[in-house]
C-alpha cells in the first residue's frame, strides 16, 4: 500500500503492460481529455470572476483534474457522488452546462442553489449531494447513503471525495469504520494534494500513507498517482467492483494543489515557488496530452483548436451570465424548512419590504 500505481509517468510515457489491461476507445480518451481541459480553463475563469468581484470565492482545482474526471468516467450512471468544495471536474464530467456552473458562482437569479452557498458541487440530476464546507462531515452521509442502497439491495456505488486534511478528523474515522463494519458499497476517494491550506501532509499524520489507514478499518486501501488519469480510471474501476462485492475501498490519489487553497489564500506565505514549479512538471493535463499525441490520438493542432473553442465558449457564456439579474432577497428564506414557519414569514416580510423600498428608489 506504499507502492504507487501509475500507468502514464511524468513524461507521458505509458507502462505497456498495465495499459493493455484498460479498454478505452480513442473517442473516450479524447472525451476524458476534453473534460480535464474544460475543468482547467473554466477553473481559471472562476478565479478571474472572483478577482473581478463577480464571484464570492473559488477553491481552485488546478492540478487535480485527473481525479474527479477519471472517477466519473470509471463510474456507472446509477452511482452517486459526495464531492468536496474543490471538485469542479465532477460537474464537468457529469455534463453540467457551463452556464449553469457560472450561474452558481455568480449566485444570480438562475443559480439552482438559490444563492444559499458558494462553491458547492451538487445537484439531483447529477446524482451529486452538495457538500458541507467543514471537511469530512459529508463522509458520514455518503456512508449512510451507501448503507441505504445496501438495505434496498440497489446495485450502485457511492464515491465520497475528501482531501488529506479531512483524514485527521473524527468523522473520517467514524465513517470508514462504519463502512467496514457494514461492508458497504462505497469508495472513499482521498485527493492527497499535500496541503490543507498551509499545513503540509506531514502535519496531518505520522502514518506513512493515507491508504494504509484502510487496514485498521478492515477495508481495502489503494495508493495511486492521482495525476495520471488512466491510473485513476483503472483503479476506480477495480475499487468499484470491490465495493459492490462488500469490500469498501479507500483510494489515496497523490496529487498537488498548484493554486492557492481558495481565492482568499496566499500560498507564497508557506511554500516556495520552486516547489510549485517542480510539481507543475508532474501535472496531469500536460502528461495526458503528451501521451495522446505520442499515440497519434490527438494532434497539436487539434489540441490548440480544442482549447480555443473552449475558451470562446466560456467567454460567451460569461458575457451572458453576468447580465442575469441578481436573486430576489426572498430567496434567503426559501428551503430552510419544507414550509415557512410563522417566525420566518414575519422576518421575510420585513426584509422583503425593505428590499423593495430600496429597489424602487
Amino acid at each position: 500500500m506504499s507502492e504507487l500505481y501509475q500507468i502514464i509517468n511524468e513524461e507521458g510515457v505509458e507502462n505497456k503492460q498495465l495499459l493493455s489491461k484498460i479498454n478505452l476507445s480513442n473517442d473516450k480518451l479524447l472525451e476524458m481529455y476534453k473534460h480535464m481541459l474544460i475543468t482547467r480553463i473554466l477553473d481559471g475563469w472562476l478565479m478571474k470572476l472572483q478577482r473581478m468581484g463577480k464571484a464570492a470565492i473559488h477553491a481552485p482545482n488546478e492540478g487535480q483534474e485527473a481525479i474527479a474526471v477519471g472517477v466519473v468516467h470509471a463510474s456507472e450512471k446509477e452511482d452517486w457522488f459526495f464531492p468536496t468544495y474543490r471538485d469542479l471536474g465532477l460537474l464537468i464530467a457529469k455534463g453540467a452546462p457551463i452556464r449553469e456552473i457560472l450561474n452558481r458562482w455568480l449566485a444570480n437569479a438562475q443559480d439552482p442553489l438559490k444563492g444559499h452557498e458558494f462553491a458547492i458541487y451538487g445537484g439531483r440530476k447529477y446524482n451529486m449531494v452538495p457538500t458541507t464546507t467543514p471537511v469530512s462531515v459529508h463522509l458520514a452521509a455518503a456512508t449512510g447513503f451507501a448503507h441505504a442502497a445496501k438495505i434496498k439491495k440497489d446495485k450502485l456505488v457511492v464515491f465520497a471525495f475528501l482531501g488529506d486534511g479531512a483524514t485527521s478528523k473524527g468523522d473520517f474515522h467514524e465513517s470508514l469504520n462504519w463502512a467496514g463494519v457494514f461492508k458497504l458499497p462505497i469508495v472513499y476517494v482521498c485527493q492527497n494534494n499535500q496541503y490543507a491550506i498551509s499545513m503540509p501532509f506531514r502535519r496531518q499524520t505520522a502514518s506513512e500513507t493515507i491508504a494504509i489507514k484502510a487496514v485498521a478499518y478492515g477495508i481495502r486501501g489503494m495508493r495511486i498517482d492521482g495525476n495520471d488519469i488512466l491510473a485513476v480510471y483503472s483503479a476506480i474501476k477495480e475499487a468499484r467492483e470491490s465495493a459492490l462485492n462488500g469490500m469498501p475501498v479507500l483510494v489515496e490519489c497523490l496529487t498537488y494543489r498548484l493554486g492557492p487553497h481558495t481565492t482568499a489564500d496566499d500560498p507564497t506565505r508557506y511554500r516556495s515557488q520552486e516547489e510549485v514549479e517542480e510539481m507543475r512538471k508532474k501535472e496531469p493535463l500536460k502528461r495526458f496530452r503528451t501521451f495522446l499525441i505520442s499515440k497519434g490520438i490527438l494532434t497539436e493542432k487539434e489540441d490548440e483548436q480544442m482549447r480555443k473553442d473552449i475558451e470562446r465558449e466560456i467567454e460567451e457564456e460569461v458575457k451572458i451570465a453576468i447580465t442575469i439579474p441578481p436573486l430576489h432577497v426572498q430567496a434567503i428564506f426559501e428551503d430552510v424548512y419544507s414550509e415557512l414557519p410563522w417566525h420566518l414569514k414575519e422576518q421575510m416580510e420585513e426584509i422583503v419590504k425593505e428590499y423593495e423600498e430600496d429597489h424602487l428608489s
Partner: protein
Amino acid sequence: MPVLTLAAAINNALREQMRKDERIVVLGEDVGKRGGVFLVTEGLLEEFGPERVIDTPLSEAAIFGVAAGMAIYGLKPIAEVQFFDFAFGGFDQIVSQIAKLRYRSGGQFKAPVIIRGPVAGGIRGGMFHSQSPEAYYVHTAGLKVIVPAFPYDAKGLLIAALKQDDPVIFMEPKSIYRTVKQEVPEGEYIVPIGKANVIRQGNDVTVITYGAMVHRVLEAAEEASKEKISVEVIDLRTLMPYDIDTILSSIKKTGRVVIVHEAPKTLGFGAEIAASIAERALLYLEAPIIRVCGQDTPFPLANEHYYLPTVKRIKKAITKVATF
C-alpha cells in the same frame, strides 16, 4: 384504551409506524438486542430484523451522519442518541449536514432525520446524563424541536414527525419515562407540531413550560389555587416552531407570566419566549416576566433537586407575579 408510560407510548408509535412504512429504520447504540438503555426500542429487533433495527458502532457522528445519508436516499431513519448529553460528538453532523442540506441544495435534497433520545435531569445522572441542550437546536435553522410531556403527545408528535419532511430533534424527558401514565389510543393519530397545549385553564397567571417541568408546574398551580390564584399552564410541546398565538392569547387574558424550564437560565429557551412577549404584548403585562430555570452551572450530581426548578420556587414565582 391501554394505559401506557411515556417510554411505552414511544415504543408503540415506533412499532406501529414501522409496520406501516417499511422505509422507517431505527439505528443507534444498543437499540437492538438491548432494546435501548431505557428500553424504548424493546422488541423492535425481533419484529423487524437487523436491517431495520440497526445496532451501531459507538459513534454519534456516524449515527447522525449515516441517518442523513439514509434520509437522502429516501429512507425514514430514526436515530436514537443514548443520552442527549452524548450528541455533541455528532453536533457538526446535525448543524452542518442535517439542518442545512435542504438550504444549501436549493431544495433539491432533504434530510428528514428524526434524532430522538432521553434528555434532562431527575435521575441522579450527573452532568453527562442530565443536561437540557434544547436551545442549541432551536438556534439552528432547519431543525424542528419537540419535547413531549405526556404519553399521548409523545406518540402523536412522533407520528407527526414521521409524516413531515424536516429534520426533528425529539427530546424525551427521561425522568418521566415511567412515572407518567396515560391512556394512549392504538393506531395512528397526530398531535400537530408547533401547537402548544393549554393543560390547565386559569385567569390570573400564565405559566409557560415544557418537558418534565410541566408536571411540577401543575403541582405548583394546584398549590397556588389554594391561595385563590388561578393559574393557566401552557405545555409548549414544540419549541421550534413554537406556538406564539397560544402564548399571546393567554397573556392577553392574565397579564402575568412565569416561564419554567430545566435548562440553564441564561439564554435558555425562556429568554426567547420572554423577549417575544415583550415585543408583542408589553402593554398587556401587569408584572415583570419571571423565569424559573436550571442554574448557570454544569449539571451537578449532588443537590440536583435544588439545581432544577422546585415546586416551591415555581409556586413562589407564581405568587410574586400574581401579587405584583
